[in-house]
């Protein structure tokens, strides 16, 4: 059976920890934990050597150190991770322009159009992983499938340093025995609900009537039924065709008050600005997202007078929105996203005021970042406190190859 669509999900293995092991020979083959403050921070990455002891990312550092007292704890070096990420994304872009970043170390690739050029989906995945190993010296795993969420499951099962293909005709058989928690959008809470309904495996969901699921679960029920039958029409969306571009961070500790949040929002706005410029688009709408300590989520958005790709302008707009949100509770996550993107010609100004200067500055900063890494020049409020890129989708130098690819 030919591939109606060939999607590869590439996920770097224990990304931060692998970078540390690559750069420090003393850490190779040893249990390594990358994390912040030993008492208050959380684990950002755990090498495969330390995982048998039960250490996982997002776990409090205090607990991780107790589980694996012999492990080496490394402070995160985000600039190094961003650089590695960029090299990896450059490799992705050399195989297809349709790369959808999920985070610094993870992406979907639609290689349907590349099959004639580079071989079967599995061959492409193998070549990508070989090149990452040779050029960036890091391990990566890949899942190959005809729909996005199956590719993601496959890469997870292939870890570490492996790849797994799920041919289109065997997708349903592949899914059948897996637990329902593997379905996209099923968290611990909905997993309990599904179990209460007697649905333990994906096959259990697939065997039900969609109407029955809808009655029990609402629209989510229909969606889960579709996923269980490997129906997932979501496309791979590269930044250039994206509806929005955003960056967000969950903090190691909940933050209190606008002064504590400002540097995080600033860093996110600057990251979004960079990605807008790389994709050659400008945003008309800026949205600020806040998740409070009680997990309640609020968003505030504003339409700008003029579309922008300037991180500082995004920051100002986002901070205005912060003023409209309640800060009575602590905040565990902030996010800035740029929406209503457009790439049409830009109106020039009679009186060369702010925008022009910002443009020149951004173009100079982008060049410095391209050459020396993004830590080379940072704003004063972010200096010394390197931006946290865990959930970011940042990479450089993709603009040119992408533009070429789309012709």
């Amino acid at each position, binding site marked *: 059976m030919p591939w109606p669509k060939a999607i590869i999900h590439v996920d770097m293995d224990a990304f931060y920890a692998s970078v540390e092991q690559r750069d420090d020979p003393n850490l190779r083959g040893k249990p390594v934990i990358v994390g912040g403050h030993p008492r208050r921070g959380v684990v950002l990455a755990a090498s495969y050597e330390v995982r048998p002891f039960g250490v996982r990312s997002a776990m409090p550092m205090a607990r991780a150190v107790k589980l694996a007292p012999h492990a080496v704890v490394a402070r995160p070096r985000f600039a190094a991770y961003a650089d590695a990420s960029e090299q990896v994304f450059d490799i992705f872009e050399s195989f297809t322009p349709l790369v959808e970043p999920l985070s610094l170390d993870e992406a979907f690739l639609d290689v349907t159009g590349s099959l004639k050029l580079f071989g079967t989906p599995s061959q492409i995945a193998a070549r990508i992983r070989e090149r990452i190993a040779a050029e960036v010296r890091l391990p990566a795993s890949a899942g190959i499938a005809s729909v996005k969420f199956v590719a993601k499951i496959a890469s997870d099962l292939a870890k570490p340093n492996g790849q797994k293909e799920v041919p289109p005709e065997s997708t349903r058989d592949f899914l059948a025995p897996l637990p329902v928690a593997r379905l996209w959008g099923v968290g611990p809470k909905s997993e309990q609900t599904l179990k209460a309904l007697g649905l333990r495996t994906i096959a259990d969901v697939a065997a039900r009537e969609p109407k029955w699921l809808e009655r029990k679960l609402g629209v989510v029920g229909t969606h889960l039924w579709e996923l269980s039958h490997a129906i997932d029409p979501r496309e791979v969306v590269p930044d250039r065709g994206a509806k929005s571009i955003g960056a967000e961070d969950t903090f190691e500790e909940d933050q209190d008050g606008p002064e504590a949040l400002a540097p995080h929002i600033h860093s996110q706005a600057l990251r979004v600005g960079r990605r807008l410029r790389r994709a050659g688009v400008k945003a008309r709408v800026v949205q600020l997202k806040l998740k409070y300590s009680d997990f309640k989520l609020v968003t505030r958005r504003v339409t700008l*007078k003029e579309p922008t790709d300037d991180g500082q302008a995004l920051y100002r707009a986002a901070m205005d929105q912060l003023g409209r949100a309640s800060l009575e509770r602590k905040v565990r996550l902030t996010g800035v996203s740029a929406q209503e993107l*457009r*790439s*049409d*010609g*830009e*109106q*020039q*100004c*009679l*009186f060369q*005021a702010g925008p022009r200067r910002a443009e020149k500055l951004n173009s100079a900063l982008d060049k410095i970042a391209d050459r020396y890494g993004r830590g080379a020049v940072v704003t004063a409020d972010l200096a010394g406190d390197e931006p946290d890129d865990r959930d970011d989708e940042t990479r450089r130098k993709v603009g040119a190859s992408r533009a070429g690819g789309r012709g």
Partner: protein
Amino acid sequence: MEFRIAAEELRKALYRAQGIVEKKTTMPILANVLVTASKTGVTVTAFDLDIGVVSEHPAEVLKPGAVTLSAKYVFDIVQSLPEAQLTLRKLPNSYAEIISGPAHFKIVGMAPEEFPKLPKEENAQLAKVSGSTLLEMIRKTSFAISTDETRYILNGVFLEPREGGKGRMVATDGHRLSLVERELSGEIKLKGGVIIPRKGLFELKRLLDEAPDAECQLGFADSSALFKKPGLTMVMRLIDGQFPEYQRVIPKEGERQISVPRVRFLEALKRISLLSADKSNAVKIQLAPGVLRITANNPDLGEAKDELEVPYQGAEITIGFNARYLADVLSVIDTDEVAFELGDEHSPGVLHAPGDKSYTAVVMPMRV
């Protein structure tokens, strides 16, 4: 207070008030007009704290006094009365009644003492101006006023006295600029220039439109403008600030100058911009020997092209423009041909009547 008045007179007074009274305001009294009856007649005053209009009307005053009433509701009532005459009488507790034939309205008002006082403009030195000239100047500049409230200096039109009793109006939103210079019959007494706010300018235009040939007077004092014509006084607060150095951005002479048939150019711009990307109105203007070509393309819709014959013999050049900015200008020029001057891709386009720069528009290009 009690008076008899022609319904048409009161309607005219309330019509003048409609654009000024505030509909959404934290001060409810600003939605009202102040109606004052004295021996000489009736005045109706509308004021939003920035712009005030006092309209005077003949009436048979039986008892002097004052009330304030909703500008909107009384306007609607007056327009729907059965007879040509009405009686307006003040009742206790700020109520008022309007009687016309058998029709009777009892209306809630507010105490006249609560109505804010208009600034007194005795210091203003009034100069005679031609209403129709003022109208022309407003029409040729007001479309370029910025609506971006963060650039409040540009939220109005700059009025500047020039030598020989001339006046100059300039408006810009930072992307385009429109300038007109005309002879006003009297000499406006002004040091430097003033910025007349958008809303005030449009109210002034409405008042001038009533009778463009009426004798008008205009004057300035402190930070206000005063406008008078028979039976009407208008005061408005001016925008306080320094208008940008606009002369700096008007190019002396474009490298390329062509004469373009105005209506033909205007229509072509309108039809080609139907296919501009993302509602941006972006079009490309290509100038090649003998031809001016307008193109647009929209990745979702398709592309469009139109051509005009022009007497051009230079090197080929393509410049992006917002078609609406050009169309706005072409709509207010009165000649059949328009002089269109261009520099390079990054320089502004300049439009004016052939051989006459007393009206000049400058439009910045778009990067395409």
